[in-house]
């Protein structure tokens, strides 16, 4: 059975988000999957209905609720420790091209990303650095260090190996590169400010 066709949760979401009811696909579902489909629909409608009628004002938490919040805080710290233990050092993530390609769906321009990764851009904006650090989930300092590079190989000193290409030192102005790229307008506007 095709997993994308018969995923009951996806069928339910399609109905909720777009009003699409694929009866052919629903016919294919087993009885367990049908249960799952209807559970999903029922639960979504119950929660959304409940949420639409709640009071807009936050409530003061009683002592039971405060105890629950405290236990949730320690749950978070536990989850954080577990995920930190299995995580590599952030600075080791960056030099890999794959790291940059992971954010391609957001920036929608592989060529621009490759130029970023090769550090052949000058005048990278602070906003851009901040956003990229957020997207990649690394500290801003690590990203800045990465762009500054080792002594002798930072932006201004990138070697231009292609002799036939324009003699611009292999470095392109960030603003020009961004303007030419397919990066979403939201980013272009934000990064060219200031």
């Amino acid at each position, binding site marked *: 059975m095709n997993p994308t066709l018969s995923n009951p949760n*996806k069928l339910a979401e399609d109905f909720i988000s777009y009003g699409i009811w694929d009866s052919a696909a629903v016919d294919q579902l087993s009885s367990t999957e049908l*249960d*799952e489909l209807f*559970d*999903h629909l*029922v*639960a*979504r409608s*119950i*929660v*959304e209905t*409940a*949420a639409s009628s*709640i*009071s807009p004002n*936050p*409530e003061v*938490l009683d002592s039971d*609720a405060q105890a*629950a*919040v405290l236990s*949730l*805080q320690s*749950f*978070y*710290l536990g*989850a*954080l420790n*577990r*995920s930190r233990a299995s995580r590599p050092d*952030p600075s080791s993530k960056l030099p890999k091209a794959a790291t940059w390609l992971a*954010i391609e*769906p*957001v920036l*929608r321009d592989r060529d621009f990303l490759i130029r970023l990764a090769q550090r052949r851009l000058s005048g990278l904006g602070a906003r851009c650095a901040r*956003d990229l*650090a*957020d*997207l*990649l*989930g*690394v*500290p*801003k*300092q690590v990203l800045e260090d990465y762009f500054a590079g080792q002594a002798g190989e930072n932006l201004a000193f990138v070697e231009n190996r292609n002799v036939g290409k324009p003699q611009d030192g292999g470095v392109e102005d960030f603003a020009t590169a961004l303007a030419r790229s397919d990066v*979403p307008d*939201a*980013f272009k506007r*934000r990064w060219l400010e200031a």
Partner: protein
Amino acid sequence: MDEENTEAVELYHPPFVVRALDWIEGISSEQLIAAAQIKDQNKSGFIPPAALVRIIRRFRTDGKLELSDRLVAILITNAYDYVRRVSAGFEVGDREDVIQETMQTFLTELAENDGIDWWEVTFHRELRRRASDAYARLIGRHRKRSAELTDDQEFSDDGEAAAALQIRATLVAFADKRLKTEEHRRLFLLLMLGDLPIDAPEAPNDLVRLTGKPRSTLANLKTDFTRMLKAALVEKAS
């Protein structure tokens, strides 16, 4: 989450999150804590929870763990309050399950991911989705439990419960049909179906104290009712 991530094409911060993130660049950490505690979204300085998620992750990756943890405490309190209000109408046992499961999913995703995800775009919508996922799993668990019961031979009582139900239904039908006043019907059910004795001064309660009628009246009624039942049985048998 994986399913959503593959569909996501434009997962960057919406303008209201960008504005909040720009605004906090210029303020001190004490001011930031104070701003994060503002709950009224119409007040100036209010930080949307979506932006707070990003701020927490930023401080965390930048190594400012103490500040990050203080902000997490505020975010958890607000998110908990929201989920609790959404599930206020649920049955008590279900409510706690839904709240716990929703919050734990949220906190795991908050802890494990450093990059931008949907929590930084549509925070409350994500909470509601996690809550409805938790609720759907709960319905599934309830269903599974009831399905298991029918297979379980240990729960058989050789039809005792069913027989008791049938006797009760027959007597109620009899009372409805043969007794004229509401008071007699009530007394009939108490005398013939109830567990209480007519008169027992030692016991915590009895029918004399419950109904306020003298012992002799109740005893006579019980005899009458028994006679009526016997007559009805003879009538049916003949």
